[in-house]
């Protein structure tokens, strides 16, 4: 097993209601893919025994903090890791209950795929809809709907078919590119890593097989070069006296030596003369590489500026339309100024108007409220003190996303996706 150098990374998030067996499913994935170590197993065996359980409770593997162990529920986003010879996986495990929409949004923000759990006995419920809506709002490319607890409905095919039909009807209204359905039993392991012996009628892949084969690299936008500048590297040493490297991580697209580029918001143009990758000079670089770029001309470029190609530039505006998720216990204050942090840039802003609030149970727009409270999502109009260089979130997750920070406490109070 010396692998490890040619495998890709897939980040996925898991969502389900409190009792859908999400922690058990993750525990099962880790256990059956042999990602659990002996000492971890020993610790949960001990705990299971102490609680008088007959078999090991795999959910104990992922329920991290002390309070959760006491309550028996997950209360924050926890990150888990496992790998197979084909891929490394990062799981953002976010809780399912209603008051923690903010955690699910957090977990979903970095994910390429989402697992949505449905309890086979209950079918598609409000929470399933809410989670699917969030996956669509956060533009997660691939959704896998796991119909769990099939063992409790006697592995019945008709029940499964009914559930996926009702999910399809509802999901046709959402903006999700690709979704799959898998009937599983996380508790017994059916169709998680190994194919189920109890559901001969199901011919599709197991969950792990799906996760190993979801395309990842195709998700990157290769057309629109966007490079938010993090900092300027100026060694001022004898060997590199005039060196100016614009350092950042490419958000999307490809840049090559000799490309004509423009610095925004100034609009000044120049030519790329060198690209420094993590291992030295390269002729081209692509998202999501961290590089530093040298330009032919000495332009005044600093943190918060963005470099793009001359013939393909993002939007610039001080007025934004966005969907935001409110994440703080203190509700939105329409008279307060907030910091808006967008790529590497920061400005101040005012929320001028809440156009509508999403009713997350009915998935309907409610107009006329003009406010947002913790865990609510709504469409807003924002006015910023400085121009924001952006793309729509649908087109580019990096240049299309932002957070709002409260002035006094400096807490992150909202996350936003530009329309």
């Amino acid at each position, binding site marked *: 097993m010396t692998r490890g*150098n040619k495998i890709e990374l897939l980040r996925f998030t898991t969502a389900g209601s409190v009792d859908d067996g999400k922690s058990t499913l993750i525990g099962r994935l880790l256990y059956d893919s042999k990602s659990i170590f002996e000492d971890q197993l020993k610790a949960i065996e001990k705990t299971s025994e102490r609680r008088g359980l007959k078999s090991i409770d795999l959910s104990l593997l992922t329920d991290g903090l002390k309070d959760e162990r006491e309550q028996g529920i997950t209360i924050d986003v926890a990150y888990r890791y496992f790998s197979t010879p084909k*891929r*490394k996986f990062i799981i953002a495990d976010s809780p399912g209950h209603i008051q923690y929409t903010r955690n699910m949004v*957090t977990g979903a923000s970095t994910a390429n795929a989402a697992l949505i759990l449905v309890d086979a006995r209950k079918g598609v419920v409000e929470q399933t809809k809410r989670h699917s809506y969030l996956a669509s709002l956060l533009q997660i490319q691939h959704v896998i709907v796991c119909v769990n607890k099939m063992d409790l409905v006697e592995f019945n095919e008709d029940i499964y078919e009914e559930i996926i039909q009702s999910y399809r009807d509802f999901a046709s209204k959402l903006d999700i590119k690709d979704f799959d359905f898998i009937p599983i039993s996380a508790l017994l392991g059916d169709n998680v890593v190994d194919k189920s012996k109890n559901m001969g009628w199901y011919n599709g892949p197991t969950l792990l097989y799906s996760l190993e084969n979801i395309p990842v690299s195709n998700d990157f936008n290769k057309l629109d070069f966007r490079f938010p500048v993090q900092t300027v590297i100026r060694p001022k040493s004898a060997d590199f006296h005039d060196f100016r490297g614009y350092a950042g991580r490419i958000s999307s697209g490809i840049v090559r030596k000799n490309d004509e580029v423009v610095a925004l918001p100034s609009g000044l143009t120049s030519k790329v003369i060198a690209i420094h990758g993590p291992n030295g000079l390269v002729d081209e670089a692509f998202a999501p590489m961290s590089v530093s770029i040298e330009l032919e001309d000495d332009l005044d470029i600093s943190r918060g500026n963005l470099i793009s190609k001359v013939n393909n530039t993002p939007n610039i505006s001080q007025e934004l339309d966005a969907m935001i998720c409110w994440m703080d216990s203190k509700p939105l204050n329409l008279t307060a100024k907030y910091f808006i942090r967008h790529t590497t840039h920061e400005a101040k802003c005012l929320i001028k108007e809440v156009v509508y609030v999403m009713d997350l149970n009915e998935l309907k727009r409610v107009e006329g409220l003009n406010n947002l409270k913790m865990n609510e999502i709504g469409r807003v109009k924002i006015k910023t003190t400085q121009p924001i260089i952006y793309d729509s979130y649908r087109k580019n997750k990096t240049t299309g996303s932002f957070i709002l920070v409260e002035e006094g406490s400096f807490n992150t109070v909202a996350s936003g996706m530009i329309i």
Partner: protein
Amino acid sequence: MSSYIFTHLDELESESIFVLRETFAQFENPCLLFSGGKDSILVAHLAKKAFYPSKIPFTFLHIDTGHNFIETIDFRDKLVNELAVNLLVGSVQQSIDEGKVIEEKGQNASRNRAQSVTLLESIEKNKFDAAIGGARRDEEKARAKERFFSHRDDFGQWNPKNQRPELWNIFNGKKQLGEHFRIFPISNWTEMDVWNYILREKIELPSLYFSHEREVVIREDMILANSEFIKPLTNDVVKNEIVRFRTIGDLTITGAVRSTAITLQEIINEVSMARETERGNRADDQRSEASMEERKKEGYF
């Protein structure tokens, strides 16, 4: 590079470099917590790449418990010299002498908890507003919930219930006077990733990681390096063994494993077949199921 395939190690490297550059850009006076272990060596290596051809713009801070392996200290001094960075040492012995911490007594006494006091003191005294560490989320349950930018109040404490949400790759490092941040650029790396990357990049490590013969104390399931800091117990067995260390902490708490691995490739083969997580032989985590969380709340790194 015609296929635009990015491996998981490339992606982790790129993410860590991004976080290190954010730290430099968002803080006035960051330090890099350097222990001489492989994770902090990795962070130093990534920092070198992030700011090339400039020098690493962070002061290195080593919290010296006084119970270090001599090999660790030698390695530290050599690396600091090569990188031409500034090194500060915070001494736990001094904190004990000044009466700021009370040293643990008893058979498995260690200076692990005492480190937090010295660390917070060094941060305050030098006005560091960010401390970069090599902690990884896969190490331990409480660490699985850490942010990349982890806010600490003016007592240096972590509040796991009230962490700032961290979305996309937008890091909020804004803080009040007196508060600081802990920064964890290699949060998403696993032990296996670290080893594979060290192999790929041919990163030099202290000799302790490779198999060697030394005098050890065998105490129940633990194999400890024998030293003046270990209080002998009646059932201890002292003898020579061929061992290596999977993590490097203090002499009093770092357990060795029997191993013949003398190359990085052999270590990787061993790690990929290992049956215990690397912290499994750290006596500091085994005190109770919630022990890491308790220490982190107090300011442990």
